[in-house]
């Protein structure tokens, strides 16, 4: 069983050639590499969640159904956020794997809204341009966003097509059987769902891609 290797920032690369072993990796974090205000910024944007109250008990990770797949468990994300490990947190898979099932929020003994923090980190990652470009989850979010901005409603068939086109076109072929089965049962429509008051909607929404918050 392979444990996740935390990402590091390579500091002080040698200036002259040196014999390197493949699996020997240097891991250290200097205070100067941290963004010490990161934790406070995220906490403020997430309605003042008290990240400082976290006692690192691990209940959130224990109850999270996706914790097995995350490179950093939710508990580690909270610890890293408040200590200022900005790059590791915003580059992590964790924030995208969060399915917002809210189990952690309900069970946290300090009543921290961890899911809200995850959403804030997602927005921050998009704002800072950190998200991995081919990872389907943020791509799905952005396609969804654009579609609703345009039509006011989301037509699943077209959403999926644009998702596959941007991430992995071959997948569309693999999913075609499923798509067909849904289509014949009337569960995949071709016609787009549209809202009448689209202009109204455009005026309300800001058209910005950033993580602007209240």
């Amino acid at each position: 069983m392979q444990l996740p290797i935390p990402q590091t920032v390579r500091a002080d690369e040698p200036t002259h050639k040196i014999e390197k072993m493949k699996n020997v990796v240097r891991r250290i974090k200097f205070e100067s590499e941290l963004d010490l205000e990161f934790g406070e910024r995220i906490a403020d944007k997430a309605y003042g969640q008290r990240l400082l109250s976290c006692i690192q008990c691990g209940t959130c990770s224990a109850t999270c159904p996706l914790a097995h797949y995350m490179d950093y468990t939710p508990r580690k994300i909270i610890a890293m956020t408040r200590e200022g490990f900005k790059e590791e947190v915003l580059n992590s898979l964790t924030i995208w794997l969060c399915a917002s099932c809210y189990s952690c929020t309900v069970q946290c003994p300090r009543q921290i809204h961890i899911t809200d923090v995850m959403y804030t980190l997602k927005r921050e990652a998009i704002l800072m341009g950190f998200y991995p470009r081919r990872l389907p989850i943020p791509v799905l979010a952005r396609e969804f966003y654009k579609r609703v901005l345009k039509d006011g409603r989301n037509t699943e068939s077209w959403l999926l097509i644009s998702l596959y086109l941007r991430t992995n076109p071959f997948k569309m072929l693999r999913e075609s059987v499923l798509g067909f089965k849904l289509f014949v049962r009337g569960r995949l429509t071709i016609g787009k769902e549209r809202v009448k008051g689209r202009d109204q909607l455009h005026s309300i929404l800001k058209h910005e891609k950033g993580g602007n918050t209240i």
Partner: protein
Amino acid sequence: MKYLYFPGCSLRSTGRAYEESLLAVLKALEIPIEELDDWNCCGATSYASIDETDAFALAARNLALAELQSPDETVNLIAPCSACFLVLMKTERYLEDYPDVSKKINTTLDKVGLHYHGRVDVRHPLDVFVNDYGLENIAKRVKHPLKGLKVASYYGCQVVRPFKTFDHSHYPVTMDRLVQALGGEPVDWPLKTRCCGGSLTGTIQEAGLRLNRLLLKEAEKRGADIMLTCCPLCQHNLECYQQRINRIYEEEIDLPIAFFTQLMGVALGLSEKELGMQRLFKKPSLSHITHPKGAVVNAW
């Protein structure tokens, strides 16, 4: 008092059977309902991942429209899809709890002549049926009791968390009680609210498929004949990938997944077409319930 109805994008697509069966059941029980005029997408998890103000504004437009459409003091807005239910409820709650949020969103809405005054109460159909209409009333209307059909109720996550509205966040009983009132036998199983992965079955299959595999296996192990859901995405995940799961993990899962309104409709004596049963990948075998004398009818 009329309920307003917010379908949500999924109910017009992969969750069509949910809308059909829900409207059919509401009609059969004579619960007055009206679709929210010109509703827009609630934004689900995607909008909240991109921009928070937009996410709230998007959802708040629906709330403001609901207030305009209904003359009631408290507007009851039914949102069957769990994601819509949560997003609308979260918007309603946060606008109430955080005055600066409310101010910002209402300023945005004012630009187009809308305003949200806090009159909307977002409801889930389970809550409406069991708590408003009442289990005894439903039981009275049952034409085809479910005859001990073993039903695993799957609630998913967003209808019970994080807001504790009509049921417990991890050990809910509403759907089970409904099943009992319909004559079925609820299966006691530990994964009633364990996340199905949401959109992960489409994006990160390894994670999404495995989550669904766990749910399906455990339900079958506990003897369920059928699993009921109350969210279109959950239903899609649990139903549409069974063959793939069987292939990849060498399993033999074969469990019909239906919307709870569909089973309700069966018990109330509604027809297959009305309930959208033909849209399911695997139709549950219910002929012993609908035609108890044993006369086999091909429709089922």
